[in-house]
């Protein structure tokens, strides 16, 4: 059964939902429209799955429900009456509890102190009074832990359980689980998922946000799919299938992109990574990228994808091994990498790729002061600005002028500025970490085309991408990374998304 019109009253619930979201839009300063009229009903006793690609608007929706952001237009109805949460505390006191991917816990305090943090009751903090309450709480989610353990000593998964317990201790009417399993091991996941189910059984409305569609299948009663800030599909258990979710998340764009996948020439080895070991792992990685080749790295969060790219670029210390680019060994520093012709597009583009307060033109010349300056190290502003104008035209950067601050650009346009920083200077190797994260569909298609063009110009490209459909449509070859080591390698034509997913998860 598909609820096509979300505003229609649900047939089998007479009472009003815990939280009804009516036609919410959200526009950020800078003009990014994150939500375009979303309506949802979150009902008591139901686990509601929320899925969508990065940049689909999930995180904005979560922030609105949690009271972190306010919608630009639209209404929130809490138990039938209109609300306007101005800060997280408002939502919390109404009965919303949030568990994030990595919820902040206070490492120096004990489990018990963390669970009742900010909720110590009046007067003196007497731990012994809370122990019975804590035990009951643990029993409800079938989890055992010593309440006096210091949180710093816990595993990531146990910390996640502590933050779930903390959320439950507030006796919420609505629990928001935002990728609660993303950073924890499969064994620990069962506990988190079980907790979510048992809370719904106790009459709480649960929102479950995840990229792991099998988990969504496992525990959700109904699912909403977001794409580009819109609700594109909604279904309950009867209509639920992974295919349908994928179709909703991905839309039509992959088919378009896939259709134009070109055949291109692959040349000599341009990047040779030999026995490279990062500081935190005891396994080493060797891989080669040829001119014109796009190599993908697939792995789960925490498999060492980003560390590998950063170690190749010299951004993090290397424990052992060497990196050879175009026949020359690079010493381990970003400076050496840049002058050796390596470019790096980091995942956190505002934090690591750009200077947010600066205009487009000062950002595009950030990495190439040598060819953009005159004698005696005088800046050549005219040349810099010509380059920025050219980048804006050729890459289709939407901005009122090259004097726009990059902080005011949308994700895709900001990412194009990061690319522009590198592609107009001579380089041999391009390292891309989640280049399309937080980028809208149109921007994504542009970036994928750009990456392919760069490969055709003979640049060797190494790319980390969490969305495997997109990854396989882009790359020639994909290496699977697990626990910091290369597990296996596939030709992109010879592997399906399902096989790759299984391999990455250690199932094959």
């Amino acid at each position, binding site marked *: 059964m598909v609820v096509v019109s979300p505003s229609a009253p649900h047939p089998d619930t007479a009472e009003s939902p815990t939280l009804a979201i009516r036609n919410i839009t959200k526009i950020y300063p800078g003009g990014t*429209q994150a939500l375009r009229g979303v309506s949802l009903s979150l009902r008591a006793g139901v686990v509601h799955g929320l899925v969508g690609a990065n940049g689909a608007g999930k995180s904005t929706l979560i922030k609105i429900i949690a009271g972190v952001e306010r919608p630009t237009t639209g209404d929130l109805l809490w138990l039938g009456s209109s609300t306007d949460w101005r800060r997280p505390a408002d939502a919390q006191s109404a009965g919303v509890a949030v568990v994030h991917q990595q919820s902040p816990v206070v490492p120096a305090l004990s489990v018990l102190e963390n669970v009742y943090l900010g909720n110590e009751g009046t007067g003196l903090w007497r731990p012994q009074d809370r122990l019975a309450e804590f035990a009951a709480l643990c029993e409800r989610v079938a989890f055992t832990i010593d309440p006096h353990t210091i949180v710093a000593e816990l595993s990531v998964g146990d910390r996640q359980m502590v933050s779930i317990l903390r959320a439950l201790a507030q006796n919420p009417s609505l629990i928001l689980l935002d990728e609660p399993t993303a950073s924890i091991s499969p064994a620990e996941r069962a506990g988190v998922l079980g907790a979510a189910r048992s809370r719904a059984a106790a009459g709480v409305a649960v929102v479950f946000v995840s990229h792991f569609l099998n988990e969504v299948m496992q525990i959700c009663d109904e699912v909403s799919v977001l794409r580009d800030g819109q609700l594109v599909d909604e279904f309950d258990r009867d209509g639920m299938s992974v295919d349908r979710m994928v179709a909703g998340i991905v839309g039509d764009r992959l088919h378009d992109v896939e259709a134009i996948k070109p055949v291109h020439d692959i040349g000599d080895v341009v990047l040779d990574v030999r026995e490279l070991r990062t500081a935190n792992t005891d396994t080493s990685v060797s891989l080669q990228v040829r001119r014109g080749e796009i190599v993908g790295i697939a792995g789960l969060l925490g498999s060492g994808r980003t560390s590998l790219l950063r170690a190749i670029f010299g951004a993090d210390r290397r424990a052992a091994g060497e990196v050879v680019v175009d026949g020359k060994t690079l010493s381990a520093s970003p400076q050496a990498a840049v002058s050796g012709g390596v470019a790096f597009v980091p995942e956190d583009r505002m934090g690591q790729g750009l200077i947010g307060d600066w205009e487009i033109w000062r950002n595009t010349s950030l990495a190439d002061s040598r060819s953009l*300056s005159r004698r005696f190290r005088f800046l050549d502003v005219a040349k810099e600005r010509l380059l920025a104008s050219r980048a804006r035209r050729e890459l289709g950067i939407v901005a009122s002028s090259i004097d726009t601050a990059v902080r005011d650009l949308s994700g895709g346009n900001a990412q194009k500025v990061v690319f522009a920083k590198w592609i107009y200077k001579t380089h041999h190797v391009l390292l891309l970490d989640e280049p399309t994260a937080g980028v809208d569909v149109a921007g994504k298609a542009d970036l994928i085309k750009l990456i392919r063009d760069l490969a055709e110009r003979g640049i060797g490209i190494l790319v980390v991408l969490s969305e495997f459909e997109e990854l396989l449509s882009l790359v020639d070859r994909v290496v699977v990374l697990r626990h910091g080591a290369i597990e296996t390698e596939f030709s992109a034509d010879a592997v399906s998304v399902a096989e790759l997913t299984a391999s990455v998860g250690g199932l094959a």
Partner: protein
Amino acid sequence: MTIQKPPHDQAQSIGVGARLRSASQSLRPQRAGVVYALVLLVVILVVTTVVMGQPTYLSSTNISNILGQVAPDAILAVFMTVVLISGNFDLSVASVAALSAAIALKTIDTIGTIPAILIALAIGAIVGFANAILVQKVGVNAFIVTLGAMTAVRGVVLIVLNGESVTATSRDLVTIDEVVLSFPYWVGALVGIGLLALAVFRFRQARLSTALPLDGFFVALIIAGIVTLIISFAAPDLLAQPLPVWIMVFVTVAVSLGLRFLVPGRKLYAVGSNPEAARLSGINVNFYKMAPFVLSGLAAAAVGLIYAGRFNSVDPNALTGTELTVIAAAILGGTSLFGGAGYVGKSVLGTVILFTLSNGFNMLNLGSNYQYVVQGVVLIAASAVYTVASRSRNRRKLAEAVSAPTPAPAVEG
């Protein structure tokens, strides 16, 4: 300089109005507040002195007097601004200056003038380098490192002076402080005309859409040109100043131009704005974080020499508190404590404001008891203006974004 021939797709030109509009941005209170504050302060003082029947406030003597007092602190403020732009902090400058003065006066009679000066400067550079290593390589917070350096170096001053003040028989440092360089009025006139000519050149250049839009630099050229012309014809005796004042002028102009027109200047701002992005763009972040400390130490030592020459004597508590005056001056000038933003010229104006305040208090016989209260209030008020102004600008941007949800497509064809 050459005018860049634009390629035809960029050939569209920008009208006079649009050019002036972009220049007028730099006249907003949050950008030029320090200039308005100084003008307001001077007007108040001029009016009050006239009303109270005292000698004219804006006499050449009084202005020279203020400039002479301002010069050492202004030189420190220039380099403090450089340190602040790089995203760091230096509390040790006053102690270093005192140590430099003490060492120079202690050694000058035995080892000669030049060696004494070199030793004093070397000590400044060494303290600066030690600060740099501890902050950038060891990773200790700059506030703590330089607070420690401030205390420890002051301790060294006490040890060196053994608790007493010291005087030298050599008059060389005094001569350096007192030597007056004077320029004939026509040199000033030529400089003024030159500055205005540069402004005209800049204005014509900004016609091209690829050229940098007119900004505060253009406005500063015009103001500096007019002020220089007025001085040259109305008060040419202001062109005769002791060496420290000319050093201040030279350092301010040279560092501002370097920050604006040279690659290292751009990189300094980049490193201060976002060190990680700068590092991942291949910029030598260590160098741009460390060099300002060394420069600051050197400048502090040089200021110590000026101080030694001025009094030909130094006592253990010399210059105590100057580091805070200097930081206050930089903040009055709109320098960010978080790095990546600031202009040395405005910091110098900030220094002038602080000294004009205390000078005015003396002129009006208001009692120096009140002057610290007023200085403190001025400092906080200035920061409040900067903060509120930038917040309201963000809010305006948000309002614009909401009223026009779809970003306008690129206008350029």
